[in-house]
Each structure stands twice: as C-alpha cells, then as structure tokens.
C-alpha cells in the first residue's frame, strides 16, 4: 500500500512499488489525461508535477511518489499558472492531434512557475524533452510567451 497525494487528494494504491506512476494514474486511478508515448523518458508525453517539479511519470516508480504531491493535467485549471497556460493554448489553437499536449502544458506550466519571463533558450531547455510529432513547436513557444505576458499583467 502506497499513499500519495494526487491533485490534492490523498490516495492509497495497492500497485507494486516499482509500477510506474504513469500506469497508476492511468490504469489504477483512471486518470487518462497523462499520456504514454515512449515509456523511457524520451518523449515527455507523461509529464506530471511531483512536488512542483516536472517529472516523467513513465520512469517514476509509484514508490518514489509516496508521501509526495502529484499534480496532473486534470488539475491544471485549478492552478493560476496552469490556467494562464491553458488560456494561451486556446488562444493560439496550439493542439493538432493533441496527444502530446498534456505533457507540453505540464512542461510549460512548470517552467512558468519558476521563470516568469523565459527566453527562447529557457524555453528550449525546458521543452526540448517533450516531443510533438504534429510539429506545433512554434505555437507552443508563442503560447508560453503569451502566458508569461498575461501573468505579468495579472491577467
């Protein structure tokens, strides 16, 4: 039995400790917003926040999340940075197929939580681990800058 906090709720799961957090979220808890893309920390589709840090849930054993705070895409609207990022994503109509976008939004909101005015190089560093096969990168970049701008204005 492992206890962790998922989107503010304490949850106890029976999965074996080495089960990746990704599959606990998706299969055990039925929270399918977090995606599976590669399973080995190469694509970023599975990105969640663990105690505020972006992590790849596909290679994070659930035991490593015990007693910690996990935040997923499903809770982004409840967070001011997440809301700003989602609003910018909608404004720029970023998603195409949409499959990578949970990871992109989790990556972007983690970046903007610690860096209020990211440069292009900051965006590259924070986001280059998150693949988009539909090629929405320029819209992602524009939306991150827009979200930063909106937050600076207090919007």
């Amino acid at each position: 039995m492992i206890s962790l906090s998922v989107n503010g709720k304490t949850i106890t799961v029976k999965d074996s400790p080495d089960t990746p957090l990704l599959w606990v979220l998706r299969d055990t808890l039925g929270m399918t917003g977090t995606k599976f893309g590669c399973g080995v920390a190469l694509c970023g589709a599975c990105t969640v926040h663990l105690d505020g840090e972006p992590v790849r849930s596909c290679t994070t054993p659930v035991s490593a999340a015990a007693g910690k705070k996990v935040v997923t895409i499903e809770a982004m609207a409840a967070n001011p940075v997440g809301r700003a990022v989602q609003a910018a994503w909608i404004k720029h109509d970023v998603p195409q197929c949409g499959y990578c976008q949970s990871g992109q939004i989790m990556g972007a909101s983690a970046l903007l939580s610690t860096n209020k005015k990211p440069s292009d190089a900051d965006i590259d560093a924070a986001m280059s681990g998150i693949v988009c096969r539909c090629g929405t990168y320029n819209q992602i970049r524009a939306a991150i800058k827009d979200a930063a701008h909106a937050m600076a204005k207090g919007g």
Partner: protein
Amino acid sequence: MSAIYNASRRDFLKTSALAGGGLVIGFTLPGAARLAQAAAMFKPNAYLRIASDGHVTVICGLSEMGQGVHTAIPMLIAEELDADWSKISVKQAPADPAFNNPIFGMQATGGSTSVRGHWEPMRKAGAAARAMLVAAAADKWKADQADCRTERGMVVHKSGKKLSYGQLADAAARQAVPKEIKLKSAKEFRILGTPAKRLDTPVKVNGAANFGLDVHLPGMLTALMARPPVPGGKLVSVDDSKAKAISGVKQVVQIPGGVAVLAEGFWAAKQGRDALEIKWDDGANAALSSEGVSKMLAEGAAKGGALARNEGDAAAPASKRLEAVYEAPYLAHACMEPMNATVWVKPDEIEVWAGTQSQGPSQGILGKVGGVAPGKVKVNTMYLGGGFGRRFAPDFTVDATLLSKISGKPVKLVYTREDDMKAYFYRPASVTRFVGGLDAGGNALSFSASVASPSIMEASGFMKLPANGVDDMAVEGIRDCPYDFPNLRVEYARVEPGVQVWFWRSVGHSQNLFFIESFVDEMAATAGKDPYEFRRALLVKQPRYKGVLELAAQKAGWGQPLPAGVHRGIAVAQSFGSYVAEVAEVSVGKDGKVKVHRVVGAVDCGMTVNPEIVRRQVESAIVYGLSAALYGKITFKDGRVEQSNFHDYPVLRIDEMPDVEVHIVASGEPPGGMGEPGLPPIAPAVTNAIFAATGKRVRKLPIDPEELKQA
C-alpha cells in the same frame, strides 16, 4: 468514463432521430442516392442536428488526427446553413456506409481527401437544412419564402421579423427535404475562408480528449504481444511459466501475429510479455539487411522496368549529360500515440474502440475475423494521436479482435513504442536513377527516371498493381513531372525485399520529390543557372506550380543577401491537388551538422476552407518531413529492425524548430488536400540549400553529417 462517453456517442444518432424538439436532416451522398434507385441499399443518415436551443451538432464520419477535419467539415455545413459558428459542435459518427468518403467509396480518412471529397455533399447538407428552416419560417409567418433570408442562425423576414433556428427546429423537421439545392457562390462565403477556431482545442488542453489508449471498459484486459523479430518469422515454442507467475497476468494466447499476454493493466501485461521465453523460426528473411535492400533497389533501378511515361526520345543526343542515383530508406510513422485498439467480441456483434483511419473497411475485415456481418461491427472512432497513414492499417484492430474472441473479454491491445517502431508498415525504401541531358546553351533537353521500389498498391490489400505494371504510388511525383522537358521517360521496377510497406504522410511523393527536385537542381547547377530561374523557365505552361514557386521565392527574398554561412534552397511540388513551394535557409557546421533556420512556404490549395489550419498543416508537414530528412531511417540487420525508440529514431524537437512562414495563394479553384502536400518539398529544399552551402549533393536520406564535415 470512456465507456460512458462512447455509449452516449454510439446511441447518438438513434436517440437524436427519435427525440422530439429537434431537426434531423437525412441526407444522402451522391453515390448513395444512385444506389438507392438501383437497389434496397438506400440508408438515409444524419450529418447535422439542430436542437431547440439553437445548438447545431455536426456528425463527422472522418477521423480527427490533428489535421483539423473536425473543424473543416462543420465549417462546410455551417456556411451553407448560415449557422452561428459559436453554436456549432462536432461529434464523431459511427462506422456506417452512409459516411463513405466519396473519393474512396469507403469510410476512411487519408490521402488528403476529406475536404476534396466532402466539399460539395457537406455544403449541400447544410443548404438543405437551411432551405427547410426558411420554409418553416415562411409557413409560420404565412409569408413568401423569397421574402425570407438567413443570417447567423436566424431566419429574417423582410419586415424585420426574426425566428431563431432553435425556435424553428420542430417545424422544420416536418418540411420535405428539398430536391433542388442551391449552393452559395464563393463571394457569399462568410465562414469559409476565415480562420475559425478549432472545435477540438478545449478538450485537448485539459486531458479530457479521449484517444484510443484512454478507453476503459469494465472487465477489460490489457494485452501486449511478442511478435516475430524478423518479417515472416514463425513461432517455434513458447515457455510462458514465468509470465503467468506475474501478478495480474490472466492469460497467454497464441495468434498468428505472435504471443499475447492478457493482464489487468498495462504494467502487468508488459512484465508478462517481457517474461515470455520464445523460440522463433526466422524464416526466409533471416539474412535481410539494409545493405542487401539497397543493392536490390539499385539493381532494379539500373535495369529499369515498366514504362510509366514516355514522351519524345529521352536518349536523344545532348551536349551535356548527367546521371545520378538517389536513395531513401524505410521509415516508421512514429505517431505520438502508439498503436492500440480495444475490441469486445460479443455473441452476435463486435464493438471496436480505436483511433483508426479506416473504420469502413474495418467493419468487413473485423467482421470476418470475429464471424459476424460487417453491419454488426460497431466502430467507435476515438481521437487519433497522430495518423500519418499508419492508422489506416488493420494490424492492431485485427489482433485485438482475435484476442477478445479467444478470451471472451473486452481486450485493449497496446503496442509499446518499441513494438510500434518494429511493427513494419513502413514507408518503402526506394532508389531512383536519373539521366538528364542539356543542350549547348544549358537548356534542358531530356530527362529520364528509373524508379525501383516495393508496391504499396499490392501491399495495401485493397488495391492491385495495374495491368501496365506501374505502381501509381511508387512513381507519383516523378511520373507527373511538371517541367517542360521535350524528351521524358519514367520507368518503374518493382522490387520486393519482403518488408510490409504502407502509406506514410504524402506516400510516394515523400521520397520522389526529394529525388526529382534534387536532380532538377543538379541540372540547373550543370547548366550554370540559378535553380529558381531554371525551374521557372521550365514551368511556363504550369501556372499553379509557377505561382507558388514565385511567391515562395519572393517572400523568402530569393537572391538577396543572407547572414554569413546561411544558404537557400528551393523546391516545388504538387500532391493531392495542392501546390506547395518551400525555400529553406540552412547552415552547415564544420562538424557537418545541419541547421535549418527558416522555411518560407507558399501554397495554392484552391479555395481555402480555413487559412490558419492550412498554414498549420504545411508547418506540421515541414516538421514531419524535416525529422525524416535529418534523422529518419529504419534499417535491418540479420532480419531485425535496428531502431526501437526516440533515441535511435530521433524526431525534431523544439530547440531545432525553424521559423516557418506560410503564404497562401488566393484561388477560386476547387479545394485541394492539405494534410500532406506541405511535406514533399522540404527535404529537397534543405538538401539543395546544403548544396548551395557546401557544394555537396545529398543523394541519400537521411542527411549524413559525416559526409558534410569540413576537413
């Protein structure tokens, strides 16, 4: 949650037709109407629903895989309906022959056909509904229909009286479907041609969008499979004792495609699958290697084959003659969402939940596998996490059906990234040998191409190689060479190394335009001419090619200075009815590393449904094509695929993303396709820029930095 989502969607058509207070427009596609007269196959069906609150729901039979079809189809209907765009939403249709793609004659999404095929029928569906709403309003007002007009979800009488579509829905449902339908002229368009926002964005920013992998059914098992590591290999024996000992593993099943482990959830299934101990017989392809494939293709291209096109005498004497051999590798699609399908074989019906591009053919194929009639196969099309042609293939739905049939349970079959990468259905490897001739003045005199490639038509299972022996997809982009070469010859040699090939974004154009647009660049260089001007002169009789070529060159500032070390390359292509030219600005490092700084594209796709989606599709295709040009290759050693995941099959990332600008030619031509045509020009635009930068001609993809290193 997914089960509820699907159940409500599945019943949508039925319930909406029965529930009062709404207007359902039964409408037949042209093909279906003909059938109706001929036989009892007429099946009226619904493309839109107007609720009494004025909300319009468009039911779309096409798969949304990022290309924006769930916005484009509603735009077509909304335009002729004169709907209020803010009141439109879209639902996925079930698989039903009524939703057949008019171009394919089956319900499927691919070949950049969606807007081309549905441009007229969907507008007619909207126009018919509008006419019935007008008739209903005129009845209520006891007015002349000619005195009524429509605007943004309202019927407006010349006196100023208004009724909303919602208020009229009930009465309109009792009107007869008009026989004569008048469509707007392009001048009257109010929604078409505007950058309307995508209808699928809101659910794609909060995790709510349901993809195939997100399906969950009560009692469902998750399956992972071990497949033969060599194409055509066979199972000799399996020891599943270790797999069965893993907690959560329920069953191990053998099917023709391999050995499956069925378990509670992905993780148990994966551990179980990885614990299988299997002996395979590698069969006839045990020695398959990429060197061997290259050799077979090169020999095929050298020998030549079936005549695809022949004008004049391509062997006519020329004062300068050049010859070059080009090669492209097998490619995986690497959709962001790995292949998967959930299938439940019930006693007398099969239900499928999958991100598929071929729900129509799936009914027949899966019905056969599961032993029910095609009409008894219910297909719930989920959002597709990328398609690119891969999700047209039946492997994942067929195997999931077999596994559900054997286990008696709903089964979600999941491919890991490694499984997906190694599951074949690759873009064919291909070699083309060109010979070109120039006269003394450097004018193009002759051009011949000998293409060697596997046949996608034969591999598809639903097409056959034509009697002339020329696979249309193997030669597309070269056979239809637009340049005014007085002597021209194209041949096709079918070479089959034994690997399952498939449609890959832009299909034959994906490699053939790299080949031909590079060779034409070589001809220009040999002639001592500017590559843009050389092409332009040969496209005098091809105004649409010439139009995009000139626009791209002009917007990119062709001929004007660039920062030190940056060079331009240009290429132009037509595919799927749309014309695209691209100029790439590229630098090559001392280490041979290629950096693409900017791409300027120009597109002529006829009338534009949504210019923003057009631009995004060109940009998306550029990224997909750049990934392939810079990194993409599937190689074989000892019969085995050498690549497995994104470390050895790299794709473009945000830090490598060029600036992209896309310009659209204003056009009154019928719409062309847009999901694919942005791709073919990018590889040659980049490699032509590399030639401008280094004097080195890239004749084999992917680009090899080793070859471009400066000593």
